């Protein structure tokens, strides 16, 4: 969404009590879960700043876990997310980090492990009003909001990969709204993030994986 909608003003529809500490937390976790193949086995949350200080009274913990379970901001099951996670066999833990203070006040690290043993760590920031930003994936600085559909490609930092990605997108008639490239270091792992209006075609993932330099592809539909 590229403009301030009337439903950004009168919204989100949400379980209280705080748009930044409850709704935003659920949105961050909801984005994080889309970055790893289900089912999840374990999730560890590390809370910073105001999240670390006031998470219990704001239900931030229940909202984060609810987001991981796939609940929207207005899903009352958020209140019961601890119980539901236990029933689904999902192990979870919360840690407060009050020593690192040079972060955005509402920051959380979400470390997820799925049944296949894959591990993925995502850092999200809650900006207020239910708006959020994902700022780090597996230690690499990134930047996307989930307001647009996002294609996240993990690949080797080597020539030709971006050309392959844009070729595939072009074949599917996808109009790129934003495209950014992030990398660990020259020649190591890189992340290409492409944001687009509307839904992205699901079959582009398989086609992108055809390139041997591409390690993983994630689609986060808006």
């Amino acid at each position: 969404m590229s403009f301030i909608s009337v439903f950004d003003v009168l919204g989100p529809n949400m379980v209280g009590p705080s748009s930044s500490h409850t709704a935003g937390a659920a949105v961050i976790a909801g984005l994080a879960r889309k970055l790893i193949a289900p089912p999840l086995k374990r999730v560890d949350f590390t809370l910073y700043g105001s999240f670390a200080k006031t998470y219990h009274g704001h239900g931030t913990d229940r909202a984060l876990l609810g987001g991981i379970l796939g609940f929207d901001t207005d899903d009352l099951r958020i209140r019961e997310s601890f119980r539901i996670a236990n029933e689904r066999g999902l192990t979870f833990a919360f840690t407060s980090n009050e020593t690192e203070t040079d972060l955005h006040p509402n920051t959380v690290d979400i470390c997820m492990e799925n049944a296949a043993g894959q591990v993925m760590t995502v850092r999200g920031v809650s900006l207020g009003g239910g708006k959020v930003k994902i700022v780090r994936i597996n230690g690499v600085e990134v930047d996307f909001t989930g307001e647009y559909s996002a294609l996240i490609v993990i690949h080797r930092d080597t020539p030709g990969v971006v050309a392959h990605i844009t070729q595939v997108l072009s074949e599917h008639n996808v109009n790129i709204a934003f495209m950014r490239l992030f990398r660990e270091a020259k020649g190591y792992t890189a992340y290409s993030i492409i944001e687009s209006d509307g839904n992205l075609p699901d079959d582009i993932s398989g086609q992108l994986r055809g390139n041997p330099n591409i390690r993983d592809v994630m689609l986060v539909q808006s």
Partner: protein
Amino acid sequence: MDFRSGAELLALCAREDCRISQVMRRRECALGETTDDEIRGRMSRVLEIMRESTARPIKTVQRSMGGLIGGEAQRLAAHAAQNRAICGPVLQRAVTYAMAVLEVNASMGLIVAAPTAGSSGVVPALLLALQEEYHIPDQRLLDGLFNAGAVGYLAMRNATVAGSVGGCQAEVGVAAAMAASAAVELMGGQPGQCLDAASTVLMNMLGLVCDPVGGLVEYPCQSRNAAGVANALVAAELALSGVPQLIPFDEMLAAMYNVGRRLPSELRETALGGCAATPAACQRCGGCG
């Protein structure tokens, strides 16, 4: 069809000979690439959640997460039921509803952020109280919400609605400005009068700090929502009576934003000043350890 300021909004209303709510609907359809039916459906859901959140605590007390509030709406309703309310029917109901919504919010119930969760009581409280007193149909109430949305959009675009940035004047203040503008349109006022009322609210709530006890969205937030409703009603009454407002909405919004940014951080949602730092609050909270 878009506008970047109150002045541009009023120019559009004049050019198209329509109300603020109509401009906001058309803007949403154009920029959101959607239809009027679609947005009416979504706004009906907003109204439904709002109505439920004003009603539930009057029937059943909602205990808050932090334990600072719960049961206030029921007390107000009982007081009114004994014919002892001194506010008059619209304000009495509106105050009760505003307290109710914050009770739902603080107990992890379902609310609509309007524009934030901490200020979610003001808009539904005033619109639903007016509906009951003046028998306004739901379709018109939806117009009121679109009107309120226009004012809130301008505040989000050109200033802030975050207590952590601009204090409570930016949260409950903006919510009350939205409610006042919507009330003026619902009661037959002109677009200019709507924004006059919004401006008056921001003027009268200028400087209000954000100082939640224990950092929780409970106290004084709940009571401030009730006070926001009263401010909205006063401003709407002034505007509908034709009392002129010297300062245009855009200038008052800028003034609010400037004051907000100058507030020390202790008075912007950090729970380090104001009400939150009083001995009574500290004794109750015990959060600093």
